[in-house]
């Protein structure tokens, strides 16, 4: 994993997991508070019931005619009675609690009004210790839920993160390959130029110079074409097309002359069937990129001594080579930028992408007909 990819993944995970954690914590907290209230309310209801029960006992005591009045005492429920001025009368608390300072920690209280004042009691205070068991069970459940949710969301986050950085990883890989290809592509013609200039300077005889100069010319044209392609791709979005009436046949003839040195270097047999007056409404640069890329590809991927057939008719322009061909499953793929059917040959894989862009811009149709090890025909049709 690349460092930048790792960094992006970590940042994504941090944001995703922290926001999920905050959201879940708030939801869990609200759930906890509400459930705890519910549990305590249920315990308070028990206390209210106990208060009613004690009031009945107070009434019975009030009407009793015995020497001793036995006040109810329960180990779990404590109670006390207070007069109308809130002064303590009697109770089962170990220490008489003051109504104004009730120790509420861990204890539930319920104050009932007694009417009439049996035994002089106007208020009945009932208390019991909070039963922590259901609250602890609730806390445990929430903790387990958070733990499981944390694990699930961490895994989900990691998976989403990988999906999230995948396009970036592809772009970075493409960029790295592109830089490698560019350096390689530029290196070959530059080395050719420098070596041949050196040879001219060292051994050059008048009659032998033409070979070196031809090589230099070829290398320079390759450089020029690389420059044109890269400029075209780079400026494509801001490019203003200057549509003119262009004789496609003549333009293709010119470009064949331009590429003749390359074709000769590979001993290719050139066949042409070029109709006259094939006029298209097209930007000249677009037409050049279309023709140049198809021609250079056909030369590059042709076998040495092969045939290059160029046809321009009133309805289409086609370039056919007798090269390595393209596998059927790769035909769709090679239209994408930086994709090459055969990486043994040089190039960036941008040629057919440029052709495809031009074809789309003008509503032409691009068809690739290829047979492996026999050859490929690329046809651009402008009229159905």
């Amino acid at each position, binding site marked *: 994993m690349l460092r930048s990819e790792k960094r992006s993944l970590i940042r994504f995970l941090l944001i995703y997991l922290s926001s999920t954690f905050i959201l879940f914590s708030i939801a869990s907290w609200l759930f906890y508070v509400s459930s705890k209230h519910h549990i305590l309310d249920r315990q308070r209801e028990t206390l209210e019931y106990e208060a009613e029960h004690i009031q009945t006992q107070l009434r019975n005591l009030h009407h009793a005619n015995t020497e*001793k009045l036995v006040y109810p*005492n329960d180990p*779990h429920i404590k109670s006390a009675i207070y007069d109308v001025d809130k002064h303590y*009368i*009697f109770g089962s608390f170990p220490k008489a609690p003051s109504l104004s300072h009730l120790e509420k920690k861990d204890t539930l209280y319920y104050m009932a009004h007694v009417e009439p004042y049996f*035994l*002089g009691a106007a208020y009945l205070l009932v208390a019991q210790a909070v039963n922590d068991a259901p609250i602890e069970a609730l806390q445990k459940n929430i903790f387990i839920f958070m733990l499981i949710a944390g694990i699930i969301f961490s895994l989900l986050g990691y998976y989403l993160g990988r999906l999230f950085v995948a396009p970036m990883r592809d772009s970075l890989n493409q960029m790295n390959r592109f830089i490698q290809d560019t350096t390689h592509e530029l290196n070959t013609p530059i080395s050719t130029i420098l070596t041949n200039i050196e040879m001219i300077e060292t051994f050059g005889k008048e009659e032998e110079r033409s070979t070196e100069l031809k090589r230099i010319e070829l290398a320079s044209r390759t450089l020029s074409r690389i420059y044109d392609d890269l400029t075209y791709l780079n400026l494509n979005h801001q490019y203003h097309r200057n549509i003119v009436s262009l004789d496609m046949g003549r333009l293709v003839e010119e470009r064949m002359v331009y590429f003749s040195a390359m074709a000769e270097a590979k001993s290719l047999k050139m066949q042409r069937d070029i109709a006259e007056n094939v006029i298209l409404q097209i930007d000249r640069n677009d037409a050049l990129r279309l023709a140049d890329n198809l021609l250079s590809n056909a030369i590059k991927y042709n076998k040495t001594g092969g045939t290059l057939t160029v046809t321009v008719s009133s309805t289409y322009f086609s370039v056919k080579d007798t090269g390595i061909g393209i596998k059927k499953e790769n035909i769709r793929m090679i239209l994408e930028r930086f994709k090459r059917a055969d990486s043994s040959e040089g190039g960036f894989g941008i040629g057919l992408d440029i052709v495809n862009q031009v074809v789309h811009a003008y509503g032409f149709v691009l068809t690739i007909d290829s047979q492996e090890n026999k050859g490929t025909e690329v046809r651009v049709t402008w009229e159905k």
Partner: protein
Amino acid sequence: MGKIIWIIGFMSLFLYAGDRGNEKGMLQANCLSCHQKQQIPSALIYKRYLMKYSTDARMEAAMFTYMKSPKKEFSIMPAPFFSKFSMKQKMPIKDEDLHRSIKRYLEKFDMKKKLVLEKEKQGAQ
């Protein structure tokens, strides 16, 4: 010195006992003798006052008001009671003596001092 303290202590106790005995006699003479003769249950009257007024001070004030001015609206008994029984006469008794008699009455029938705590029920919820 010790003897003097003993004598003062003994005298005080004697005086207090005398005072208490006097109050008791006053209550018996002014209140209970009639109640007993007419079979009016004093304990029940106490319970009625307690149920309505809750504290000794409020009970004392309510009893005092009724004794000073025996009327239906000041009585602890319900209004229909007086259709059967006549209203008692105002008693020719000093305020101070009346207060002391009421206090003694409240003390005599005090229910709160009869309260005891039940032994804890084992295993009760």
